[in-house]
């Protein structure tokens, strides 16, 4: 028993010496919010089209259990998926609005450029898209509210040809700062 006590003292001493000054979880963790997607199915025999969908901002916290300090948008993406029958060289002009704020204006945008998901902030496509500098601050202000709202996303526009058979996806990416 004396030997056992001695061993315990030795181990405890080693542990205390080596463990001193080691602080864990010193900074708040950052999480990526769940992506929020508005989806529009356009199926028109005329050139004009429009669609409406809603995004529940609260869903971005679906996989986060920590206390949230703030939430910020870091990307918004657009994807346009043509369905069977859509002319290959179709272009669209119009706008996408988020919570009554224009997100992007589109001018003769070839839909092929957005067959893969791409950021609306990609300045390489600036000739086709015009952004709204007030959009991100507006969205961040919505995300700062104690109760996250449901917002409406609208797409309206004119296509260069018919039929217009498209799936349009607008996705919001956020970072969640915990405390």
């Amino acid at each position: 028993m004396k030997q056992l006590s001695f061993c315990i003292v030795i181990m405890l001493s080693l542990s205390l010496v080596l463990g001193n000054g080691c602080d864990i979880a010193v900074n708040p963790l950052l999480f990526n919010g769940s992506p929020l997607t508005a989806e529009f199915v356009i199926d028109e025999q005329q050139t004009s089209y429009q669609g409406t969908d809603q995004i529940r901002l609260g869903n971005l916290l679906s996989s986060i259990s920590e206390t949230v300090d703030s939430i910020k948008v870091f990307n918004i993406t657009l994807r346009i998926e043509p369905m069977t029958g859509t002319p290959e060289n179709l272009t669209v002009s119009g706008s996408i609005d988020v919570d009554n704020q224009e997100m992007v204006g589109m001018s003769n945008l070839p839909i092929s450029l957005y067959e893969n998901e791409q950021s609306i902030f990609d300045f390489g496509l600036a000739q086709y898209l015009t952004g709204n500098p007030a959009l991100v601050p507006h969205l961040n202000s919505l995300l700062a509210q104690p109760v996250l709202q449901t917002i409406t996303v609208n797409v309206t526009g004119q296509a260069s040809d018919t039929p217009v058979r498209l799936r349009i996806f607008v996705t919001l990416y956020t970072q969640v700062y915990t405390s």
Partner: protein
Amino acid sequence: MKGYHSFRNYLRYYTVILLFLTLIIPSKSQNVLEDTIEQLSSDAVTGYIQPMVDSFGANINSGFPGSARIHRLGLTVRLQFIGMATLIGDAEKTYMATAPLPFSQQPVETATIFGDQGASVSHPAGIEYQFQNGQINTRYMPFVVPQLTVGDVFGTQLTLRYFPGSLVTERIEDFPEISLFGVGVRHSLSQYLPLFPVDLAVGGFYQTFSIGDFFDSEATAFFARVSKSFLLVTVYGGLQYETTDVTLSYTYTGPLPPGDQSDRNISLALQGENQFRATAGAGIGLGVLHLNADISVGKVIVASVGIGFGI
């Protein structure tokens, strides 16, 4: 039977003590680590936790018996408790990372798990992105292992490291199972060189260490030792080649692009970057009590101290 129960009791008490350092800190770190990296894609997580892998590898490959003095035939039975600590310097606190699109793809310096706050990058469109914050503030990364050395037969000693994970889970609910197993041999070269002024030995060591389903590792080391004894004091040094392979298994809970059906179960293989080291140290024998300390220099700097009992 009484001896068996006493040994079992010893192991039980030893479990509690070992918990503080080898189990509590890595396991607390494991919870923080899991929460952190579950949000990171496998590309992003590597740079962030590489210093932790390096320090773990350097630690577990430290503390092997230092003296090269092994009798051709003799009796050595020594139980040691080895404490190691890898220094965490500025180089271990930052790494170069690339922000996701549409941000600039120019790498930026940001915090590792040992660093401070993650770097922030801005985009002309008014959006910002921040890399993950560091989570562990420490000047060194510690580790403790038990070690039993027996010999000497044909100038060879056998060293064992062992901790059965079930001893913890049987007693503490929801505690991850932590297990350690290591075996190594050292062989005297001096026995073939009777008039050589110093003792020479070579050896190798193999270890496995795991925490629950999250962390699995294998470590190997091959070393050459030289030592010289002066009455109670032995000074020793050596060179070592080592490898550490770590596998992290976790479920990625971060976002995927819409429609992306990629497997969220990630098995990330990492390697410790410490491959070569030079070691210098000294030990003192006071009857059945043996104390030693050494320092190793490689990609990282590791110090170890040992307290041993036996002959």
